[in-house]
């Protein structure tokens, strides 16, 4: 079985590996370079747990071939914080009780990061759109949306009707 070389930057570090042809980026990250943060929830590109950034764009690693990522800049949750201090998004999810089982959390973080990197002050609709490819079966999404909005500095609650409903939940 011939292997092919791939080279790219992952979380700021140059990586070069020989891989089986046809390998997905998800398998590359998890099995080749040992980054277990991106998850395999569906392998269909429908749940979002494999969301990583490629050149700043949110991408589904389970349906992306690593051979299509040559020279790309990949970001995963592993690169969000280098030391004990958390990235603001991570801290926000912690503060807002926005994780229960935790399986969707890495995908949510990267989808949110993609949004805030290009749009630092999104409104609620933009946050919902940014997370619309990420499924959560535990939290009901609301704590995650609030967490992301809290980092963006926007009002957690939008129009009046939403604010009433929103404040009632506190």
């Amino acid at each position: 079985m011939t292997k092919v070389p791939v080279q790219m930057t992952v979380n700021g570090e140059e990586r070069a590996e020989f891989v089986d042809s046809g390998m997905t980026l998800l398998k590359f990250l998890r099995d080749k370079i040992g980054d277990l943060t991106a998850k395999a929830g569906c392998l269909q590109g429908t749940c979002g747990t494999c969301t990583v950034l490629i050149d700043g764009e949110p991408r589904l690693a389970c349906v992306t071939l690593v051979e299509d990522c040559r020279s790309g800049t990949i970001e995963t949750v592993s690169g969000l914080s280098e030391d004990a201090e958390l990235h603001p998004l991570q801290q926000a999810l912690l503060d807002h009780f926005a994780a229960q089982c935790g399986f969707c959390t890495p995908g949510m973080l990267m989808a949110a990061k993609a949004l805030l990197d290009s749009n630092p002050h999104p409104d609620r609709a933009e946050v919902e759109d940014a997370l619309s490819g990420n499924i959560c079966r535990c939290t009901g999404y609301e704590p995650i949306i609030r967490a992301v909005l809290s980092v963006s500095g926007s009002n957690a609650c939008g129009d009046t009707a939403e604010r009433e409903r929103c404040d009632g939940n506190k």
Partner: protein
Amino acid sequence: MEISKSYFADERHGDFKEIGQSRQRSDTAGHVRGITPFYADRHVPGLLHLRMVRSPHHHARILRIDASAAERHPGVKRVITAMDVPHNVYTVLSLINIGPEDEPVLAFDKVRWLGEPVVAVVADSERSAYEAAALVRVDYEELPAVFDVEDALKPGAPLVNEYHGQNYYRYDSGASRKVRLGDVEAGFQKADYIIEERYDSSPIEHAPTETTGCIAVPDQNNRLTCYTGTQAIFFTLDNASIILDVPGQRLHFVGGTAGGGFGGKVDCTVEPITLLAAMLTGRPVAFIYNRYEEMQISSARAAERIYIKDGLTKDGRIVARRVRCYVDSGAYSRHSPYGAQKAAAHFPGPYTIPNVEIDCYCVYTNRTPSSAMRGFGVTIADFALEVQMDKLARLVAMDPLEFRFINAYRDGDMKAHRQLTEGAALIECMQEASTWANWPVDSRYLKMSSRERKG
């Protein structure tokens, strides 16, 4: 968050330290860093991959299994059939001291539901395993199938599960779990209104974001480690020990973290076969459900059919209630006999009714075996009971909340299963709900108490 201390004030000691305080979950820091170790978050050198060949039929006899082409396929290390399984039946029920056991780990003479595991293929890559699985040849003779709980109980219905000999679980009380109090027929005679309604629920799939699975790794000292997402780790270890005929101390289960369980990861269906594969190959083996398997093959909440017949007086009292509940266990028992029993204990709801007859049946059909899900055995019962309560209230032109105040149980009332009510708080919960939901009720209901029956 407020704590309503005015209720049962004489029973409170006022010494809450944790309740009412905001506390961080112990696992969230790991989640946001992405370092929470789910079962598949391991790098295991030399890992083999298991893919299961499953029945394409709802109900069929197995005539012949030919795995020779699969065995020869490049990358395949082992093909496992029923003959390889030391004790080829799940021991879910015997571990809670009831029986009979009724589900093979791998099918041998019959398949009873579409998706039932028949042959396990173990290979050095997922792709090889998929290819080899496609080469396994099983010859079936299709049999008539039954999909509806009441059809399954009719005379002449196809027999689903020979381990039982009939299409229902036989309790010590007979074909159903029974609750009897008073005389419902006499109660119906005294009633001013009688209504009977039927309620149906579909199977409900948990759909966790993490799929079911495990990784079994042979260790030094002739032990096996199993990394698993199960919610029932000790229970699964015991099951595996019996199925594999391996003493429990040789098994080391590592888990306690599930990417969403909700009751769907309690059936022990992946660990025993994966451990067996690791034993037979001497290599670590992963068996990870793909998304199709998670949605279609893994157990769902049982579908239920519930008939509730009530006798009601003009002043809004339920004087007789008869419930017949059919729990669709699918092709095998798993935990459903226990779930149907819980349902029997839960009916007729938190209401004082002098004449009660409950029959809960655990029924076998040729459908995916069902199992636990949040509020196992009681959630669907509550749906039926509370919709029924609303209908009864409408029948006597009463507000649905006020109707429940009248019928709610109080301390000292006899419950249908011959236990005296104690520690009831339904009245107080409804009083509080009335305020918070802005659903006013007459002031006399706000004066009621669970501690005594008045009004």
